[in-house]
């Protein structure tokens, strides 16, 4: 089960509101490559993993993504303090404001609500771990794009932290994929699914 620590994994201290920036950064909350999707993906996939190392890794990275969801939400909260009507009208934030005021709603930069369609849990550990590596790269690209558009140092700092985490997660998932593949018959690692088929391991099946 999950415990909660009353502390952000990385500090967020943003002095200046910027609803235009909030409208973009929200993609890392509920967008296609955002932290909620990442967390739900990994926490969903972990159950059928054949190896303890993969179970542990997916549990731990899935949990860390919840902490990242919280950091993004803190960024959004601080970017939308004390907004004037002018700011709301001129920033493009008005379309979000109309439905959510300055509440935090899991959605992407174009207003699409979060959906589980952004993730898969195929029940095949090779497929799942490959998807996870792609997911971390997609998140990294999104953070790269945010950094191109963000000038405020208070915003750039936690965003750079989150971007670095994606790169590390990619590395770890690659190792987990190697671990799973090494446990299978190296003449044909696709011969069976170790999370479903009996006797699916190193020796060839008769």
């Amino acid at each position, binding site marked *: 089960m999950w*415990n*909660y*620590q*009353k*502390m*952000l*994994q*990385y*500090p*967020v*201290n*943003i*002095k200046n509101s910027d609803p235009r920036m909030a409208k973009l950064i929200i993609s890392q909350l509920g967008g296609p490559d955002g932290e909620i999707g990442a967390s739900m993906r990994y926490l969903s996939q972990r159950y059928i993993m054949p190896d303890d*190392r993969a179970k*542990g*890794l997916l549990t*731990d*990275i899935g949990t*860390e993504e919840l902490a990242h969801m*919280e950091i993004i*939400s*803190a960024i959004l*909260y*601080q970017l939308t303090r004390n907004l004037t009507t002018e700011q709301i009208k001129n920033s493009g934030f008005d379309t979000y404001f109309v439905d959510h005021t300055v509440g935090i709603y899991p959605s992407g930069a174009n207003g699409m609500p979060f959906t589980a369609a952004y993730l898969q849990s195929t029940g095949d550990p090779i497929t799942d771990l490959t998807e996870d590596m792609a997911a971390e790269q997609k998140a990294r690209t999104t953070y790269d794009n945010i950094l191109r558009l963000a000038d405020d140092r208070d915003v750039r700092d936690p965003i750079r932290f989150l971007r670095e985490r994606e790169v*590390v*997660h990619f590395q*770890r998932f690659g*190792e*987990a994929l190697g*671990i799973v593949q090494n446990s299978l018959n190296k003449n044909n690692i696709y011969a069976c699914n170790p999370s479903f088929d009996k006797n699916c391991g190193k020796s060839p099946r008769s």
Partner: protein
Amino acid sequence: MNEKARLLRLIQQLDFSMYELSLYLDTHPSCANALERFEDLKEARRDAANEYVAKYGPLTHRGAGRGKAGEWSWLSMPWPWERSEN
């Protein structure tokens, strides 16, 4: 940075180092070097957290209870997403 913020920052750093190490240990569970560093960090983290909680309030439910004001201490500090209290 005041004492409370300094301690909280230290705990954040130790916590993060431990978490980063734990991900590495998930895929390298018998790495002696990493295990030793993890144990060292655990000790440092425990000391920093004990000091913080004694002076400033709970970080987890387990550390909450009747606070200095005689009320449920979990609610007592500002929440992590508010400025300069994370």
